[in-house]
């Protein structure tokens, strides 16, 4: 019994003895249960969602065994069992089954189990996954000589190694020196990375230079209004430069071709479970492992190698394979840029509203409007960002600063900067409201103390009020950051793309390319999960990418919270 229900006044014991106990409603017990229940429900939803993401996200990359399934009708398939579910087989099919199986299905209310196998070998089979009903299975085996190959193209291959050709030396199944194969594979991959570096970075740089020569020439042409003397001079110079650069380009291309030719000498021939063969350059295989013959340590090795690739590589196979580094990078850069844009803007607005504006009807209207902005659907911001930032502001910038590149837009289309500004606009109400509250919470005595010392209003705000309000302002920025990092819809209009050829930051002057389109984890989730050819293959990636996005937001928030707590200790703590 709660202590207050047993308590009675003792002033007139006889009279109180007959009094009724406090009734349940007055004690508030049912409401307490309601409140607690609401909290528990909320916590369960959040914890459930997190658990789902964590479990699926962390389990995805762990190598599974490969089953070889022999069906009743004699077919043999090999694949990784992905998941099992109930289904209701069609009546005609059930009728054709042996009596024992039919009875089993009937006791199960007409349901049977089926398993989804990831068979891979898309180039041979035409699909990656296959459902196998349990009653159609004659037997399941896990032979140790089955390998899983992750390839650059066509996804996974599941099968056996038939032969290996290492620069002329051919080995056949049973006599393959595994260590030599692994070493040759590593070498081939190293050369492949070199080729990529040449093609992507060095040839990219040369192309960039040729392009900038062309643009410089076009600039001269625009300025001089046509073929004049200085234009002819410039054209000659440009041609000379382009010839040099083209020579450079050809040198690089030759180097890449040599490496490619070397790689073509290392091949492997695979057979799928049905006996069909497939020859493959060793360099085009990302990794391979004997799925049924792995120690736990080897499994963990594959697991972490996959995570490493996921975090540091670029996507391939329509984003369903490979890594998400460009998306991590894009999300991070965009969010930081957004904070840089929203912080001064929001704080200054709030400062004027709270400290300088005469509190009256007009300020109230402004404040209500700002709060209402937070309720505008985010896609509307996307439309606004595209129309205002990209087309109007960006278009003007293009005409003034980059006329030589027209009609190709530079800033006149979606890009990193416009995305960050659009999200800054979206999150500015959060910052304004939080900052106003933080400013209002600075004790009057502090302001008066400073003013009484002869400080002006601005000095007081700058030296006393702002530092003291900083933790509250940081809270607003944290909220804004969380909101901005998870936003996808407006970004689809103002600069996020499915696959960005270049990162927004690289080694080419001016290093940060605000005008470039970029990849974003949130959009990546949408793209992989709902826009890809093979949604079943994309599903695990959806979870992993979600996990990563949550981790990234949590990391950024944690950093901001640490900073805020340090400020709080410095400016607020210790008051008696």
């Amino acid at each position, binding site marked *: 019994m709660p202590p207050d229900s047993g308590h009675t006044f003792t002033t007139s014991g006889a009279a109180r003895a007959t009094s009724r106990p406090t009734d349940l409603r007055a004690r508030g017990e049912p409401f307490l249960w309601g409140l607690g229940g609401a909290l528990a429900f909320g916590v369960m939803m959040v914890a459930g969602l997190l658990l789902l993401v964590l479990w699926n996200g962390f389990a995805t990359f762990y190598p599974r065994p490969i089953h070889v399934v022999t069906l009743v009708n004699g077919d043999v398939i090999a694949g990784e069992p992905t998941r099992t579910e109930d289904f209701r087989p069609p009546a005609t099919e059930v009728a054709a089954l042996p009596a024992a199986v039919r009875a089993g299905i009937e006791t199960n209310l007409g349901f049977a189990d089926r398993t989804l196998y990831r068979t891979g070998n898309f180039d041979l089979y035409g699909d990656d996954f296959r459902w196998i009903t349990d009653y159609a299975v004659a037997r399941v085996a896990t032979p140790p000589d089955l390998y899983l190959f992750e390839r650059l193209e066509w996804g996974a291959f599941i099968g056996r190694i038939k032969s290996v050709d290492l620069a002329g030396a051919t080995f056949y199944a049973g006599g393959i020196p595994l260590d030599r194969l692994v070493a040759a594979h590593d070498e081939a991959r190293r050369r492949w990375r070199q080729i990529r570096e040449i093609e992507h970075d060095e040839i990219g740089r040369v192309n960039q230079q040729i392009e900038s020569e062309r643009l410089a020439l076009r600039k001269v042409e625009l300025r001089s209004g046509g073929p004049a003397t200085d234009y002819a001079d410039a054209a000659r110079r440009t041609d000379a430069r382009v010839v040099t650069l083209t020579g450079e380009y050809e040198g690089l291309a030759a180097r890449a071709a040599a490496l490619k030719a070397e790689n073509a000498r290392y091949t492997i021939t695979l057979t799928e479970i049905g006996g069909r063969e497939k020859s493959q350059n060793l360099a085009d295989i990302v990794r391979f492992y004997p799925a049924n013959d792995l120690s736990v340590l080897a499994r963990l090795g594959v697991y972490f190698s996959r995570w490493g690739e996921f975090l540091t590589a670029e996507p391939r196979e329509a984003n369903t394979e490979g890594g998400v580094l460009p998306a991590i990078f894009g999300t991070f850069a965009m969010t930081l840029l957004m904070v840089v844009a929203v912080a001064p803007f929001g704080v200054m607005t709030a400062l004027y509203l709270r400290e300088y504006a005469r509190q009256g009807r007009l300020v109230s209207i402004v404040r209500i409007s700002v709060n209402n902005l937070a309720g505008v659907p985010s896609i509307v911001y996307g439309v606004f960002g595209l129309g205002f930032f990209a087309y109007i502001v960006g278009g003007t910038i293009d005409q003034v600063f980059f006329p030589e590149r027209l009609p190709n837009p530079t800033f006149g289309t979606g890009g990193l900067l416009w995305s960050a500004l659009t999200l800054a606009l979206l999150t500015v109400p959060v910052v304004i409201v939080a900052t106003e509250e933080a400013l209002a919470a600075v004790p009057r005595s502090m302001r008066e103390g*400073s003013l009484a*010392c*002869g*400080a002006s209003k601005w000095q007081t705000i700058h030296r006393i009020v702002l530092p003291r309000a900083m933790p509250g302002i940081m809270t607003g920025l944290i909220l804004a950051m969380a909101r901005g990092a998870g936003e996808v819809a407006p970004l689809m209009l103002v600069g996020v793309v499915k696959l960005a050829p270049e990162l927004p930051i690289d080694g080419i002057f001016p290093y940060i390319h605000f005008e470039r389109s970029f990849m974003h984890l949130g959009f990546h989730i949408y793209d992989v999960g709902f826009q890809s050819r093979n949604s079943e293959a994309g599903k695990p990636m959806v979870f992993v990418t979600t996990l990563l996005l949550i981790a990234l937001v949590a990391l950024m928030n944690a950093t901001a919270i640490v900073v805020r707590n340090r400020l709080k200790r*410095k400016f607020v703590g210790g008051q*008696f």
Partner: protein
Amino acid sequence: MATVARSIQPDESGTVYHVRAGAEGTVIDVDGFNLFYGKKQALFDITFSVPRGLVCALIGPSGCGKSTLLRCLNRMNDLIDDVTINGDMRIEGHDLYGPGVDVIALRKRMGMVFQKPNPFPMSIFENVVYPLRIDGVRDRNVLEETCERALKGAALWDEAKDRLKESALGLSGGQQQRLCIARAIAADPEVLLMDEPCSALDPIATSKIEELIDELKGRYTIIIVTHNMQQAARVSDNTAFMYLGRLIEFGETEILFTAPKVTKTLDYVTGRFG
């Protein structure tokens, strides 16, 4: 020190004066001062002069306008919307509310100490030199000299000299209040305004502040608002008794507490109301 310069002298506002004059004339002269919060009048026709170098206490029941009057002296009431004033208020002959008065420069001549200690969230050193910092003083020597002088002036030097770099928020309440006094005198003001400086402090801290007021007397003119009549009697030379926005009696503390000239004052100091 000359005593009883003016005998009982009722004037048109009805205030009774028996002020002990200082050796060097007056610092602040208020004549016929009225203040309104919106339409409500809070101060009625206040007229008095504060002798230089003495301690002047303002007493009276809550809401009588003591703090309002004090805050008029350094124009802190400017911060409140909807305040109108009329009448005359001068510091050393210069009009406080005249056109073109530099309020910021004025406040530097009037140090103020508040009811609750309000150290800034900075180090002790930075707190004390804050008035210099806002003037743009950067010379380390000047700052350190000022800090030492002000902390010694506020009797805090011995306790604080080894922890100047520590946060001021780590000091005790009484130390914080002395720090605020040090901050007020760092700017070298002419007048120190104290708005119930001991009301948030325990008796020991209070007695330290009172000793300090005694030491500061002479160098600064001190005007102190207090609820504590014993405190007024202990620290002040002159006391002003206010009631419902009017100045009832202003005169030598000893006389005001032992033989007041007005019945209202007698009732208040003997505890019959308030």
